[in-house]
């Protein structure tokens, strides 16, 4: 191998396997074995360049994670983040996913381990990723087919009724409301960041049967607790016990009934087959 080819071989190896750069930084003698002893190779710059390559490989996610990418740019952490991610993947981390959803999940999972928890902008980005990936997840699969009419009509929800979610529902707990995240993503870089509220936002991402659209529902603590337990197997009495420690009261049933009336949940009596 000529000297010029050797230089390219080392740079290419560092870019495709950034963990090598970490090793070369720790032990420059390793580079000697590749014939670059004493050569002025800017390893830190090559490591960052690997971040650019990784960033470009995620360009396909921009359309489905627009706010997250705008916030990454606003935070000016794209290169550092993707350089660290490239190092992580090449060090034996999970390989990049084949689909947008898998790739987005991989990036979000890594971001949570990498981000500075004291930095509010990083917090916004983490929430933004969760929010946009929830929507992506629901839209990535065909909507569930229409189940037909709910076995029980309006006003007929009783303590023994068994409720199940119609369509698909994802529950997420975010510090920032999605509309706050969206606004921050289009603000000027030097605009003040939104204050993190004291309480988290409990959100439901609901896709009705045979429907592409995803509805975003802001939930209260009771709604969250109930929806996490609507599995199509437990009765409302059991759900009420789990949530309140008591059997389902009329008040509880009155609070849950709108889920059926809005079409979010289907109800059946015990012994009645699931739709």
């Amino acid at each position: 191998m000529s000297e010029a080819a050797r230089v390219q071989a080392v740079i290419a190896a560092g870019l495709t396997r950034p963990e090598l750069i970490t090793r070369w930084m720790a032990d420059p003698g390793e580079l000697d074995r590749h014939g670059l002893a004493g050569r002025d190779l800017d390893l830190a710059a090559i490591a960052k360049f690997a971040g650019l390559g990784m960033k470009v490989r995620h360009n396909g996610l921009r359309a489905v994670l627009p706010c997250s990418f705008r916030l990454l740019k606003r935070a000016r952490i794209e290169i550092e983040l993707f350089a660290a991610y490239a190092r992580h993947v090449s060090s034996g981390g999970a390989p990049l996913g084949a689909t947008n959803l898998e790739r987005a999940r991989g990036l979000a999972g890594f971001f949570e381990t990498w981000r500075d928890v004291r930095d509010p902008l990083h917090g916004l980005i983490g929430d933004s990723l969760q929010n946009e990936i929830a929507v992506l997840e629901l839209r990535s699969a065909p909507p569930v087919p229409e189940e037909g009419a709910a076995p029980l009509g309006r006003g007929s929800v009783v303590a023994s009724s068994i409720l199940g979610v119609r369509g698909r529902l994802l529950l997420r707990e975010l510090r920032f409301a999605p509309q706050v995240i969206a606004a921050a993503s289009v603000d000027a870089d030097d605009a003040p960041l939104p204050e993190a509220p004291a309480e988290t936002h409990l959100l439901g991402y609901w896709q009705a049967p045979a429907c592409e659209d995803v509805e975003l529902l802001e939930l209260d603590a009771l709604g969250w607790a109930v929806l996490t337990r609507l599995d199509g197997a437990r009765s409302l009495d059991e759900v009420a016990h789990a949530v309140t420690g008591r059997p389902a009261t009329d008040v509880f049933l009155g609070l849950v009934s709108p889920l059926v009336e809005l079409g979010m949940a289907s109800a059946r009596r015990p012994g009645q087959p699931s739709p």
Partner: protein
Amino acid sequence: MVHRRTRVGLAFGPGAVDLVEAQPDLVDYLEMPFEQLRHAPALLATQDRAPLILHCASLSVAGFVNTPDAVVEAIARTCALTETPWLGEHLAFISAEALDADIDPGAAPTQLTYTVSPAYNEAVLERVADNLRRYSARLDVPIILENPPLYFAAPGSTMGQADFIRELASATGVGLILDLSHLMISAYNMGAEAESEVDRLPLENVVEVHMSGHSLQSGVMWDDHAVTAPESEFRLLDRVLDRVRPEAVTLEYNWDAFPPAVVRKHLARVHDLVAR
């Protein structure tokens, strides 16, 4: 004095075809990556909307690993299918010998996903000239080469990028893509002035100009086709147009979906500048 008309085009990316469909006179051509067509041949149908100019990142003209025959054949076929007037390629490498190729000659070359600027020296100059001869013989259209962005100085460089390109142009007569964003990035990262670097290039060889954005992160200027070209880049285009009339100017706004109004505005600005 009569100038030939400089064509104005848009790199293929999210929203590009929709823009052209909505306003067919918006651009004179779409610039299409060979790699995109290879993986999605149906995109060839975009030439019903606008003529195509083929761009490529597969020939590795500054590399020491020969591009597989099958790839060169595919490029030649795609050139013919697209009726591209030239093949735009990067003055860079995208594959390199395996790190341990000396020990294991059978080791597969390292394949990159992003083109990398080579060291600038006589050995690489010769290699680029050889590669140009070899690959040009296989194609029916000329290869033109694009200045890559410099993020670090490769060991073994004995000259700067502008000197290297000037020597290459002198030795081979190769046409050039002058990527103004890459030039500004290289100048910033290497501590030079973009204007003086432009003046040192063989502008008479420039066939096509590229424009896109760049961003500053971690103390380094980076290529960024997800942001628009800054005002300073339009001034640089103006400076180039004062001296030469390239055949084409391409906006590479192709890493993200830009608001259509922004793309139209920037294309109109380029149209105005080249029509001066």
